[in-house]
């Protein structure tokens, strides 16, 4: 089992994802340079947070053209596990691997704080270790996390249970109040129809140790590990 963390120019959460997987989960992980088209036989790919290409033009708009994205696309189409965090989510949307797009936060400001998200679906490789309805405390740090898509796409997302994380209050009572950025349907994270590609705005890699304020993000990485172990067994 090996994780790959893609490094774009301007990625700045690449080391954090690397640390979470390597030093906290103690699983093999390596960096993949954006100009490489070789995914180094990784079993799961993480597109980390940051400001790839300085958010010039539009968040993720330039990164999607990096050579590595061709391979990531091929990998995803063949069922490979891809997780986009924050800017990684934005890149996946720009690349068309996930539907929808990001707008400026409704408050028009950068927001960094712990938010609470509800696990809406557990039949994905990113949430299989979580309880349905489980509430996770995880930090956000973004200017453009206001997820948006057209009505038809939104209906599809809900219909196919592709909304896997939704903002809510600490007790899960009021999703609208818990929504920090105006995202439609309080969407914090989605997966593709095939459920092997997911993106979320919150930073689970920043919530893997209680010393940092929360370890709720671990469940997402544990899920990925379990899914990989399962897949390995299946092919064995």
């Amino acid at each position, binding site marked *: 089992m090996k994780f790959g963390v893609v490094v774009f120019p301007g990625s700045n959460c690449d080391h954090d994802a690397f*640390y979470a997987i390597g030093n906290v989960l103690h699983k093999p992980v390596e960096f993949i340079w954006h100009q490489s088209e070789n995914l180094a036989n990784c079993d799961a790919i993480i597109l980390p947070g940051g400001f790839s290409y300085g958010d010039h033009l539009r968040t993720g708009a330039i990164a999607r053209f990096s050579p590595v994205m061709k391979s990531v696309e091929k990998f995803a189409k063949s069922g490979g596990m891809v997780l986009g965090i924050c800017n990684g989510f934005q890149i996946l949307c720009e690349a068309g691997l996930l539907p929808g797009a990001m707008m400026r936060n409704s408050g028009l400001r*950068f*927001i960094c704080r712990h938010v609470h998200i509800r696990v809406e679906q557990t039949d994905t490789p990113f949430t299989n270790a979580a309880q349905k309805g489980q*509430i996770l405390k995880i*930090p956000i740090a973004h200017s453009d996390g206001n997820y948006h898509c057209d009505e038809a796409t939104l209906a599809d997302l809900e219909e196919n249970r592709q909304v896997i994380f939704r903002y809510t209050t*600490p*007790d899960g009572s009021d999703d609208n109040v818990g929504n920090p950025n105006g995202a439609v349907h309080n969407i914090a994270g989605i997966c593709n129809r095939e459920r092997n590609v997911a993106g979320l705005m919150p930073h689970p890699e920043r919530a893997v140790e209680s*010393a*940092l*304020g929360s370890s709720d993000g671990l469940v997402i990485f544990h899920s990925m590990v379990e899914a990989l172990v399962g897949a390995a067994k299946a092919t064995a």
Partner: protein
Amino acid sequence: MATAVTEIKVTPEIAAEHGVTREEYARIQQILGRDPNITELGIFSVMWSEHCSYKSSKVHLKRLPTRGKLVVQGPGENAGVVDIGDGLVAAFKIESHNHPSYVEPFQGATTGVGGILRDIFTMGARPIAILDSLRFGEIKSGKNTTEEASAKNRRILDGVVRGVGGYGNCFGVPTVGGEVAFEPCYSQNPLVNALALGIAKKEEIFLAKAKGIGNPVIYVGAKTGRDGIHGASLLASAEFTEESKQKRPNVQVGDPFMEKLLLEACLEAMQTGAVVAIQDMGAAGLTCSTMEMASRGGTGIEIDLAKVPQRETGMTPYEIMLSESQERMLLVAEKGREHEVLSVFKKWGLDAVVVGQVTEGGIARINNNGRIAAEIPAHPLAEEGPVYNRPIAAPAPRVETEKDWFAFAPEGTNLTANFVKLLSSPAIASKRWITEQYDTSVRTNTLAGPGASDAAVVRIKDPKTGTVKRALALSTDGNGRWCQLNPRVGAMHAVAEAARNVAASGARPIAATNCLNFGSPEKPEVMWQFSQTIDGLAEACTALNTPITGGNVSFYNETLGKSIYPTPVIGVLGILDDASRVLKIAFRQEGDIIVLLDGSTSAVGAQHAAPLLGNLSSALAREFSSSEYSKTIASIIAGEPPAIDLPAEKRLQDCLVALAAEGALQSAHDISDGGLAVTLAESCFASASSLVGAQHAAPVLGAIVNLGADSLCSEHALFNERGARAIVSVTSSRLAAVLNTARQYNVAAHELGQVTRNGSFRIEHKGRAVLDSSIETLRDAWAHSLERALAGR
């Protein structure tokens, strides 16, 4: 030497326009043995500007303590460096970007942050934290502030905050702390002081000394444009006038994405072992970096401007040398290995060009298309610039009587309403609205972000293994109001509070950096303030074992002839040997005992520790008139800062560090702005996020406290700001141990009361409730007032 026919002939008048005095011009002629050409004049003018040469402050800065057993690199390099154990060092420094932030708040703040970050990674250290110390004019209209002025101050604050966040967030370093203060004197002259901290292996620290005759000089990073010519150097070296807005083109423009690439490329290039020296291009850009590298290395340097990557066409040598375009570096590589360095920058998509070489003989020669554009002996230029011992004159002593001072409310007055007003004042209110616009958690090292502990605390991951043992704590402080009333005592308080904040996080203070913000050095009373400040800093830094390792001086903080308060901002760095022992301000659980630790008197209670000058109550009124409470409630700013007792500060700090190491405390929070009452309330407010066993949110804890029955009035007991004190909370089972440790350190420990969970906040004095409110009422006032004020409400 050849000069272009079209070139402007330099006259003393043109020199004067460059801020070069007749004496300085004569000095230039003497150094060159001839008249300078216009490019050389430009080079001298920026190198000898106040900002770059410290010509007015040098003679005083000598008095600061700069040595210590942990100090690896003191003032004079890009940043100070201290040993933090396990073969690691910390590089840290604070710098001002005041004038540009007034002319163009967003860009001024971004380039301030970018500049200090460059200073850190230029030394081979990876930046891990940023703190920002900000001062603005009043954002609420009132007695001394018109609605128009307050609206402008709000716009400046908004631009500065967006700028700080915009740079740090994109660059990927957390902005973990700092402070924000408001006084009318900063209305036309905000202060933006940015501090950056970085980590490196001890043997991998880089210095800016050109070495090795024939070694190639390499230019890397952004292309050179016409932006920022005379930016920092000129903007920061003259006071503001009505025309200053026309200087907007002098403000540099920052690109954090470019700097992020530059960071990664520079650190990677340094790993090749082919880099001999490196210097960032900050103030005075290419001029400063070439001249200083040669001067420090005792060599000469030769560069060809035609090779310098340029963003615009037709730039003159003058413009290229003086441009302050951001995100540029100059480095010296080992001859024959330049390709190793160049390939790293190519990988990161950055310009990297060999523009010259290190030469013998100490001459800096600037060529341009085969012509010599400038030829200057580097060392005299960099090191033998003018030094002024400017006239000093103490202002006429303030004549004050009791009627100028705060009049204490009659005994038994319920002070709850005043307390709510104090908690709502921008100075005391929660700064969450600001700090949430900063990425505080990137790099996953932040153990205590803004407001969580008295100091910002970041853990240290071993660069190779990633294992965590130690943490570093940082705090910036500086009370301009107190320094205005008494510069020497105010400066001592700045050091004492920064060090106390670090100790209250559990860390041992080890070193300091300073940013000295003052008015015009040409005014004798400003130089008096400066000299007094240096004396105060020297005394406090010596007493608290925090040598000054670097920083900067910002003079000419005046607009239309009016100076700001003298504002020394001190950043103190501390080490926490066990990262898991970090102390936070939040009360943890119901029933914990609230204890006041007071280093100032081991015999009697804190309330009796007043300076015994003359009549006690008038002495207290005099001291109290400098407090936040006096300013907020009575609009009185007078008297003197609280008397300072450095040995008491040291005792308290050592005690806090020991208690943290024992793991004996539930929480710790020093007493400063707003006094004991505000300290207690803040420990309650913070409990929302850190209750023991709390899942997510939890009801806020309250407190019931009894201040006893001493003879002094309640307002003083609740709100006085004397130092050397902290409020800690302790489980009943650990109380005896805590009292015992306090005794060992000769620190008085007073049991004041208990942490409660009944939603109320109550302080009794002389048997009467002087503060009594629901904790939520207080919290609402404290939590949302800044936001409301900024919305103009």
